[in-house]
Structure formats: structure tokens, C-alpha cells
């Protein structure tokens, strides 16, 4: 060993830890696993009706087909028949009634996928259709909701209204969004020795899959292991909604004693599983003469679908984000989750936050349009500030300076003011094509709002050759969590990254995990990984101190695979030598780690508390060009400055920001979920549902991470990144509205998503046609 040891890999850009597997096709996903000999294929039979009574079910024809092994109905479930992430209100297989299109009624097991598909088509279920509620409006009219209203309020609203110089009243309808992870839902269940089950599943929540499979089979959780190799994208869609398909495969394995594979094809996945909740927001905002918010009243209604799923926490987060970056002195926010006959809507990046934020952005845009003000300036006037303007509606303090600093930097680097002026000039001389510029601010609360979920575990195993296996409770869906955890582990143990292997996420390594969700993966698991690594390292230090003749363990350093006394790097031993010596001295080389986030508490009855550990911030400026003849548009330039603390791995975080932005942009523009009058989704493949393609990404795409942004109390000063940058996509709406104003002054009316058709309608209305 010569030369100085290499520095820690922390805070340095690097490739994704699976990049070579990705590009060679060797990265294994659930459906790539062959399964043991005799693996069966499961195909669900689902309801074609949004709501119906089951009056008959017939399997004889299906069972007579070659290759069909079994047809299972609800009465085949050996354990508990109802599943659900929070409230167990979802019959895994419908008993007397179906509650949405895609509700499973039976599962068919076949020797081949083809046999199972043919068998599923031959299962006859007789239905008596019942009236169905599909929309938020229908549910409001019928008074059908999940849970109770959630209300957050403060201040003297009457007094505020009396002072208001400007009021804006309106309604925002935010669209649904399909997750469109490239890998659809998939599971493989293998019966193992002595009544145990190994479930391999593409899920963000292996502990929940384990719990629900055990419940359905009527066994203890200890008899089920759930493993997640990696996911081909999750985005929230695999937080709760992988579970039913895994349970159906497990049910098949229980009955046949054989391994069972299940995979939804794209149309099934899009037609049968939940999406981002569409929201209706009705609001009334009061401002003083300078445009400073005095009062905001809002009612939010989400379309929850047929079961609770995660609709209530999604609604909570929408309410917690109604303020976005603005201080509101007097307010009343109320939310309700509508019970309808759609596949239950679920988690999706942002988890209600974007839907809440859209409401206040609409009020701000409309006031700015009405008065001819710069929407960015109007927002900045309403930023959080010094006390008393530092309290969120639910009473949590907002440290304001960081957003101000972010906007100051971005306003300059994006040349916002000059470009806005240039656009006005361009629009004056261009009859058919108009440009627009829009700004968006981000203040996103980080933590699971259900406090108990803010915990994580890890298990580190050091082998006597100095190599390391790292287990943690998080799942890898592309967000780079494993890369970050590997880096934290390599840093703490002071070993090169290639000596550390991140293991497949498994519930027999780390128990009782929370979903990898709420952007919390690296905060929670990172702290747990550090805890485990430190425990092993401290034991190794004692041995190393002796080997090195150090005055004591505190002076021993671990770096780049070497162990040395601080200040004497040239006199070192290899990490492997220390590991071997520990083994020889019968010292444990493994440890678990654990972390819980401190200080999180929220009282829903009072609508007050500290639901978040901290906030993530950002600002963006987006320029668009809009064709007044067709309603088509394109992005000309995006400037994003985003706060990820001191990034654990800047290259990974930049990728998260870029991808989240484009996904948020897609939600509000080209992506449009449609259903027919009977509640059947009609956009169930990429041929009809258009997520952004390469041409949607701005060619001039400038993403920077906020410098000098260490976040106290979080792993190595970093910050969560998964969801917050999704909010930047909302800038597209403000920018498009600016472009629409090029066709005529005044408030814009734009239906979402801003498809070419909706934009053309808005343009024609603006022209006064």
C-alpha cells in the first residue's frame, strides 16, 4: 500500500451501483426469474363492471381445458379474506359484490401462461350490475366518503375577509396519472420446506406483502419471506398495490403446492390498479392591495376509489401542502376522500402534495393575470418569513431563508426578468405562436406523516476476508437508494465500494420495515446503515488499535480499505487483516442498526403539530412555446435549482430532480387517463396514454443542486429527493397560462391536463372566439 488513501466516496458523483447489470441485460427483475421446475402461471379473472352483485360463478369449463390446474374463488382462501395497507377493507377475491372494474373474482392457475389465460377467459361469472359512482361529484352528491373530514384552521377569517382588497374564488380539478413504471406488477411465490413461503415481489413494501400473504394463508409472518430484487420503477404504485397480486400467487401456491408466478400485462396493470388521486379543490382566497394573502379557505375532495388504500394519508399530505411556499394568516382547509367505484387510487410521487399545491398556485396565477402582475413577484411577496410569518397552517415552524436564497440565485442565473420581457416582445409580433415563462417554488415536508413509520433497520455482515454484505430495509426502484447506502457503508467502514455488496431486500434480514416511500429511503435507512456500520467498526477498532500499537481505539481511522492511526497513514494494516484478526479473536463481525426520526407528532383532531422533520426546497423557471392553431406546445428551456442538502451523491440526486420534473410535467400536460361511462379505463397502454418521450424533455435543461446546504440532523447533511422535485412540473401550467395570455389579456381558464385540445379551448376562449 503506497500513496495516500483515497478519500471517502461520500458527496461524490458516481454511477448507479447496478449500471453494468442494467446495460448488459443481466439485472434480474422478478419476472426474469425462471422459478423452480413446475412453476405455474396465475391469471386473475376480474370484474368487467364498476359495481355489481355476483349471482353465479362457474369453473367447470375452464378446468376442462388442457393445462388448467386450478380455479380459485373467494371460498378457497384459507386465512383472512380481506387485505389492505391501513384498513383491511379489500376482499382479495370478491365474495358477493364487486366494487370496481378489475376487482379480482377468481384466479386461474395454468401450466403455461397461455393455458392460464385461456382458462381465465373460460371462467364464467354472472353479474347483476348495480349503480356505480365514478366521479368526485357523484360521490359528493351521494355523500359517500372514506374516513372523516380532516380540518386545519386558524386565525380570524371574518376579519381577514373584511380587509381583503382582492378575492379569487375558483375550482381546480387535478387529473389522474398512471404510474407507468416500465416493469408491471410481478410476483413469484415458491413453497419451501415445512409450510413456509418465499415471495419474490416487485414491491416498495416487502413487509406489507409478507404480512398480508401470511394473513391470507392463515400463518404467522415468520413463515413468509418477501424478497425484492429490484423494481423497474415504482413511483408509489408498488407501495400498497403489489400486495393483492402477490397474495393471489401465494393462494395458488398454497393450493397446488407448486411455485406460482403472476405478472400483469400492461393493459391489466393500467386497467386494474390505482393511479394518482384526482382532486377537486374549491377555494376562496383574500389578498390585501399588495397581493399579500390574508385568508384562504379550501375544500379538497379526492377520488379515493373503492377502498381506503392510502387515500387518507394522501389527503393529509394534500392539506399539508395547500400553502406551498406561502404564509397564510387566516385559513380553513378541509379534506374528504370520496368513495367511488374505481380501482382504489394510491400513492404516487408527491402523495397528494402536488394536488394540494395546484390549488394555491391557481389562486396566485389568476390574481396575477387579473391585475397584470408578474406571478413570480406575487409569490415572493407571500413567502414564509420571520415570526409570526413562519408558521405553517398546522403550526410547524418554517426556516425561511433557504427558499429566499434559492430564488435569489435562480432569478439571477435564469435571467428571469429579462426573458419575461423578451417573451412579451416576441408575443407582440408573433400571431400564431406565443411563448410563456413560469416559475414554481417548492416547499415539501419530509417524513411519513404517520409518525410510527419513521423507523428503519439495517444488518451489516463483515466477512473475515474483509468483504461486506449490507442489508437494509429499503427497496431499489431506480432511485439509487442502494448506491447511496453502499456509499454510506463504504464511508463508515472505510473500505472501497467494490468490497461492499448490497443484498437483495429481504424481510428475513431486516424485519418490520416501512415502505420505501415518502422520499424517506435514504434518510431513514442511511441512518440505520451508519448505526450498524459504526457498531462493527467500533469493535474492529479495539483489535486494530492493538495491531497498530495505537495509544487507544479513538485514534484509529478506517479509510480506503486501510486502517491506521490518525496522522500516521503510512503505518497501516489492511481492513481484511483486521477482520481476520477479529475472527481469530472470536469477535462478532456483524451488527444490526436502527434509526427512528425524532420529534414528529401531529394531532389530527386539532389539526396542529409537527408532521415533518424538515422541508425540502426548490425553485424553477420554465419557458414554453405554444401553437395557437393546434394547442401543441414544447418546452424551450428549464432552469431548476433544488435543495437536497449536502448531496450524498450529486449525480444520483440530479437524476432524481430531472426525472421528477419531467414526470410532474407529464402529469399536467400529455398524460391523460380516460374512462368510459361504465368505469372502464380506456387508456390502458402507451399507445393511448402518453408519458413524456425524449422530445418532451427540454433541450436546454439546466439543473443545479443548491450549494452549501447541509441539513442538520440528517445522514451526512443530505436531504430527501424523491418527491419534492415533482413539484417543479407545475411550472408548466404557469408558463402555458402566460403564453395563453399572449392571445388575449385577463384570467385564463385552462382545464387539466393541458393537452393540446384543452390548450386550444383555452386559447380560443382567451381570444374571445
Amino acid at each position, binding site marked *: 500500500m503506497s500513496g495516500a488513501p483515497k478519500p471517502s466516496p461520500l458527496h461524490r458523483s458516481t454511477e*448507479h451501483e447496478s449500471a453494468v447489470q442494467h*446495460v448488459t441485460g443481466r439485472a*434480474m427483475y422478478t419476472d426474469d426469474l425462471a422459478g423452480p421446475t413446475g412453476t405455474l402461471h396465475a391469471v386473475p379473472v376480474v370484474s368487467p363492471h364498476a359495481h355489481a352483485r355476483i349471482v353465479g360463478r362457474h369453473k367447470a369449463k375452464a378446468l376442462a381445458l388442457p393445462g388448467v390446474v386450478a380455479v380459485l374463488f373467494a371460498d378457497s382462501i384459507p386465512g383472512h379474506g380481506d387485505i389492505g395497507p391501513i384498513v383491511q377493507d379489500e376482499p382479495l377475491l370478491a365474495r358477493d359484490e364487486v366494487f370496481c372494474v378489475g376487482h379480482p373474482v377468481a384466479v386461474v392457475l395454468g401450466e403455461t401462461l397461455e393455458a392460464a389465460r385461456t382458462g381465465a377467459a373460460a371462467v364464467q361469472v354472472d353479474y347483476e350490475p348495480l349503480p356505480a359512482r365514478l366521479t368526485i361529484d357523484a360521490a359528493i352528491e351521494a355523500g359517500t366518503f372514506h374516513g372523516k373530514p380532516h380540518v386545519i384552521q386558524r386565525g380570524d377569517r371574518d376579519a381577514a375577509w373584511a380587509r381583503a382588497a382582492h378575492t379569487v374564488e375558483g375550482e381546480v380539478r387535478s387529473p389522474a396519472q398512471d404510474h407507468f413504471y*416500465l416493469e408491471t406488477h410481478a410476483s413469484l411465490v415458491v413453497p419451501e420446506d415445512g409450510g413456509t413461503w418465499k415471495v419474490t415481489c416487485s414491491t416498495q413494501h416487502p413487509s406489507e406483502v409478507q404480512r398480508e400473504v401470511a394473513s391470507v394463508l392463515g400463518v404467522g409472518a415468520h413463515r413468509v419471506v418477501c424478497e425484492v430484487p429490484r423494481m423497474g420503477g415504482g413511483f408509489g404504485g408498488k407501495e400498497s398495490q403489489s400486495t393483492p397480486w402477490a397474495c393471489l400467487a401465494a393462494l395458488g401456491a398454497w393450493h397446488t403446492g407448486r411455485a406460482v408466478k403472476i405478472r400483469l400485462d400492461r393493459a391489466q396493470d393500467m386497467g386494474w390498479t390505482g393511479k394518482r388521486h384526482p382532486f377537486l379543490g374549491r377555494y376562496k382566497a383574500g389578498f390585501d392591495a399588495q397581493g399579500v394573502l390574508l385568508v384562504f379557505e379550501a375544500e379538497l375532495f379526492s377520488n379515493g376509489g373503492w377502498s381506503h388504500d392510502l387515500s387518507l394519508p394522501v389527503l393529509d399530505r394534500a392539506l399539508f401542502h395547500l400553502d406551498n411556499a406561502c404564509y397564510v394568516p387566516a385559513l380553513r382547509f378541509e379534506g374528504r376522500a370520496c368513495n367511488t367505484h374505481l380501482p382504489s387510487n394510491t400513492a404516487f410521487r408527491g402523495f397528494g402534495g402536488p394536488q394540494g399545491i395546484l390549488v394555491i398556485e391557481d389562486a396566485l396565477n389568476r390574481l396575477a393575470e387579473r391585475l397584470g402582475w408578474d406571478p413570480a413577484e406575487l409569490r415572493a411577496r407571500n413567502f414564509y418569513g420571520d415570526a409570526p410569518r413562519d408558521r405553517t397552517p398546522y403550526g410547524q415552524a418554517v426556516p425561511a431563508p433557504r427558499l429566499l436564497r434559492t430564488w435569489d440565485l435562480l432569478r439571477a442565473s435564469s435571467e428571469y426578468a429579462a426573458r419575461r420581457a423578451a417573451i412579451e416582445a416576441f408575443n407582440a409580433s408573433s400571431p400564431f405562436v406565443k411563448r410563456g415563462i413560469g416559475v414554481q417554488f417548492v416547499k415539501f415536508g419530509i417524513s411519513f406523516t404517520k409518525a410510527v413509520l419513521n423507523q428503519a433497520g439495517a444488518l451489516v455482515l463483515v466477512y473475515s476476508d474483509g468483504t461486506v454484505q449490507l442489508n437494509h430495509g429499503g427497496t431499489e426502484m431506480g432511485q439509487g437508494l442502494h448506491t447511496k447506502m453502499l456509499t454510506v457503508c463504504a464511508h463508515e467502514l472505510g473500505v472501497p465500494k467494490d468490497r461492499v455488496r448490497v443484498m437483495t431486500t429481504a424481510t428475513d434480514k431486516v424485519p418490520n420495515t416501512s415502505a420505501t416511500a415518502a422520499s424517506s429511503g435514504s434518510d431513514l435507512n442511511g441512518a440505520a446503515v451508519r448505526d450498524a456500520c459504526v457498531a462493527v467498526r467500533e469493535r474492529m477498532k479495539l483489535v486494530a488499535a492493538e495491531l497498530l500499537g495505537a495509544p487507544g481505539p479513538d485514534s484509529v481511522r478506517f479509510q480506503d480499505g486501510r486502517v491506521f492511526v490518525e496522522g500516521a497513514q503510512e503505518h497501516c494494516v489492511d481492513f481484511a487483516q483486521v477482520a481476520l484478526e477479529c475472527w481469530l479473536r472470536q469477535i462478532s463481525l456483524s451488527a444490526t442498526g436502527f434509526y427512528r426520526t425524532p420529534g414528529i407528532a401531529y394531532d389530527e383532531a386539532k389539526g396542529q403539530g409537527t408532521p415533518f422533520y424538515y422541508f425540502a426546497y426548490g425553485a424553477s423557471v420554465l419557458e414554453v412555446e405554444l401553437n395557437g392553431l393546434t394547442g401543441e406546445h414544447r418546452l424551450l428551456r428549464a432552469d431548476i435549482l433544488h435543495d437536497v442538502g449536502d448531496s450524498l451523491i450529486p449525480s444520483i440526486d440530479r437524476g432524481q430532480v430531472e*426525472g421528477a420534473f419531467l414526470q410532474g410535467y407529464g402529469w399536467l400536460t400529455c398524460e391523460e387517463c380516460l374512462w368510459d361511462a361504465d368505469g372502464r379505463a380506456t387508456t390502458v397502454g402507451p399507445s393511448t396514454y402518453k408519458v413524456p418521450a425524449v422530445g418532451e424533455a427540454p433541450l436546454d435543461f439546466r439543473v443545479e443542486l443548491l450549494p452549501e446546504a447541509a441539513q442538520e440532523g440528517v445522514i451526512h447533511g443530505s436531504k430527501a429527493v424523491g418527491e419534492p422535485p415533482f413539484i417543479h412540473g407545475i411550472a408548466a401550467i404557469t408558463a402555458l397560462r402566460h403564453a395563453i395570455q399572449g392571445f388575449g389579456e385577463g384570467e385564463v381558464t385552462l382545464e387539466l391536463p393541458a393537452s393540446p385540445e384543452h390548450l386550444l379551448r383555452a386559447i380560443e376562449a382567451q381570444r374571445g372566439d
Partner: protein
Amino acid sequence: MDGVRFTLNGAAVTVTDATPQTTLLDWLRQSAHLTGTKEGCAEGDCGACTVALLDTEAPGGPTWRAINSCLVLLPQLHGQSIVTVEGLSGRREPLHPAQQIMVDKLGSQCGYCTPGVVMSLFEATYRKDLGRPWQLDDQLSGNLCRCTGYRPIREAAEAVAGTAPADGFARALQADASALPALRWVHDGAEAHVPTDFDHLFEVLAKHPDARLVAGATDVGLDVTKKGARFACMVSLHALPLRGIVRTAEGGWRIGATTRLSDLELAVQDDLPALARMLRFFGSRQIKNRGTVGGNLCNASPIGDLAPVLLALDATLVLRSAAGERRVGIDDFFLAYRKTALGVGEILAAVEIPPVPADARLSAYKVSKRREMDISAVACGLLVRVGADGLITHARFGFGGMAATPARAAAAEAAVIGQPFSAGTFAAAADASRQDFNPLSDHRGSAWYRATVASNLLKGFFHEVHSEAAPALADRPSGTLLTPSPATPHAEAAR
């Protein structure tokens, strides 16, 4: 009987024990156990299943083509050579440049779209015709990525495009193609034929008048993957001498029916930019690499994107049967929804485009929810001829998406004939077009939207062509918008 013979990652393969409508994707994953190629949609719209085909008959010489393996039926592989992501580099070899650049640029996050992206980059690596800035978008437009926001993937494409390392894949392009004998394959009662001459073709068609003819299978493939179609008899046309583009002595074009759309796009780039623009937005690179001119027309879909332009250009279709050839004007080819003038036992052999008169003003537009890789809400080809006196002498306005077949806008045409070439004339044509069509409402657009866009495009046509005759593709064009991108340091640096 013998089976389908092709080359997979350099090794000869014979498939005998599969039904003929098995897709290459299913065969790769289930029979060959090559799971690197992913299924994202099985409808040719995500690109996760992309593999490369050695196209020995491409107009510019043999080349690698990225194609969707979910839309390739096994008989179409007969005599062909395929490379999958597993074939790019062995375990002990360095990564292929198309792979390494994706690692270096952090082009993968979840990794599921990545093998398909790599195969599109693989095509780009050996392409010699990627000189125009917009072509990188086109090269990547068939690969959906839900994670990255595309910036690193686009940078990867910029880095490898046209670098053509002198490796085994480059050498494979030089190798002589060995022609295989025709295929007559019967499996489980289903027949599949790959005729190499017309006698074989017409013999099969005489015996099986309902045989399913397959050219690129970009549409037939959907019948198989989405509707479970099974064919008693399938005929793949790929080995027949039906492909190629010839300039006629008069300055027109004769385009063989199985000419790939990407072949045509390249061929008309400079001389027929309106058609080139339609082809730019026609579909993804993978689809254009398989889809054929004949398939797009014989399909007779009301939303096929070639027909509106060919209507404007007054193309003639050459039909061929055992009895010989006949010619049908494109005005008379589309009879009803998905019904053409093709007789039993007759195929489309070629399309003839007459020379574009010097006094013609021509453009084409496609409007869809997403700019790339989407199906038209409205597409049109618009042509007028303007006499020396400034009056319009001829008009041909072809529209797709507006009726049960691709159709001309008779009232709009009548409104401009004899009128001055002016904004007022086209405003009148825009009004008149509303009498021409009674379009449907569907998930691509409402009747209102289609009618309004069709009408507006007539106004926009005048606006676009009154100053310059031939629209050219801008740096980052849309199907209708031609204002150039504002110059930016970033964009310039990227070029």
C-alpha cells in the same frame, strides 16, 4: 417440415416447435431464456423490447436497425440476423460503447428500459446518416424512460452516434448476405410462408385467399399481442423483391411496397421535405425501421399518416396479382373503413409519386397529443398550385383522422380554386372544411378539436408557405410548429 432459420447473437438458430405467430420477444424470454430484453407494453410503444436487426437491404447498404421484438413474428426472422443486449458484450469482454456510455452518463436508473435504450444507441453507433440535430430525438423517440428525464440518455446518444468502431458488428455489415431458400412451415395446423418469388406467393394466395400478409407487422403484431389473433396461414413478404426507391426519369418516385418507412424518410429528406416531415413524426425509429409503405396503405386505417400526404401528391398505386399489374389512383384506393380496392389474390407492389410541379406549394402536418411516437388526432397533406396570375389552379387537401378513411377535403379545395393565394382565401377554405368532415370523438381528440384543428391547419398552411416554398425541419421541430428554437449556449454546446 423445416422451421424458421435465423442468426441470433452470431449463432445459427432453427425454430421448429413454436406457433408461427409467436413474437420474437416471447421466444427470446421464454424459449431462449434471454431475459435481458424486456416487455414493457407488447404494443411497440415503449421500446423496452428493442433488439437490432442486420438490415442487408437498406438503401445505403447493410446497417443495424433497432426494432421492437414484441412486433416481430417468428417467420419474419427467416434468413435474418438479430442481436440482443446479451450479444453486445461477453462477460469477459469490455462493454460495447453503447453500453459503456450509458454507465458513464448515468443513463439508467431503474434499468428496465435500459436494454432497449442500449439497442437504440447501438443502431446509432453504426448509423452514417445522423447528421441533423433533430435526428437524435428521432433515434430515441421509441424508448420511453420513466425515471431519468432523458437528459443523460440524449447525451449518451450524442456521444456514440456515428462513431462506428471497427468491431465485429461493423464487420458483420460487410459480410455477404447468404440468401436462404423460401420457407414453407406447418406447425400445429398453422402454415407460415416466406416466399422468395411471386409464383410461390400467388400459389399460396390462390390456396388461402384469407392468408394474412405480413410486411412489417407493426399493426398485425398488435392483433397478435393485444387481441390474441391466430392465423391459419401467414405469409411474410420480406424476402420478395418489393423493396426499394427509384427516381423516375420525370423526377417522380417509385416506391416498392415493402420499403421501410425509415428508408423513405431518408430518401425524400431533401427533395420532398413535406413527406419527410410527416415521416419524422410518423412513429418511433423502431416502428419506422419495420413499418412499410405498403403496410401503412393496405391497412387502410383512417389514421395512417402516409395517406394524407400521398393524397395531396396524387400518388398512383401499382397492384399486382397472378394476372399481372394494374394501376389505381390513390383517390380510388380507400373504399371504406379499413377496406381497399385490393382484389382477392392481389397485393400492393409499389407506390408512384409524380413529380411535384414547380408552381406547387406543399406541406404536411401531424397533430397528436404527444409530438413523437403518437397516433394522429389529425394529419394532412396540403398542396396547391398557383398560376402566374397568382390564382390557385389546383388543390389537393388530404386528411387523416377526420373520416372513416383518409379523405380529401372537397369543399375546402373548391373554396380555393380560382382564388388568389392569400390569407383570405385560406380563411374561406378553413370555414369550408367544416362541411367536409364529421369526425369522431375519442381519446385522441373530440370532434370539435379535430374539426377546429383541420380548419386551423389550412390557415396555418398559408402562413407557413406564402413566404418560403419548402418547410424544413428545425432544430427541435414539432409536427406543425416551425419557429426555430432560440439559440442557447447549452444547445449550441451540445451540438
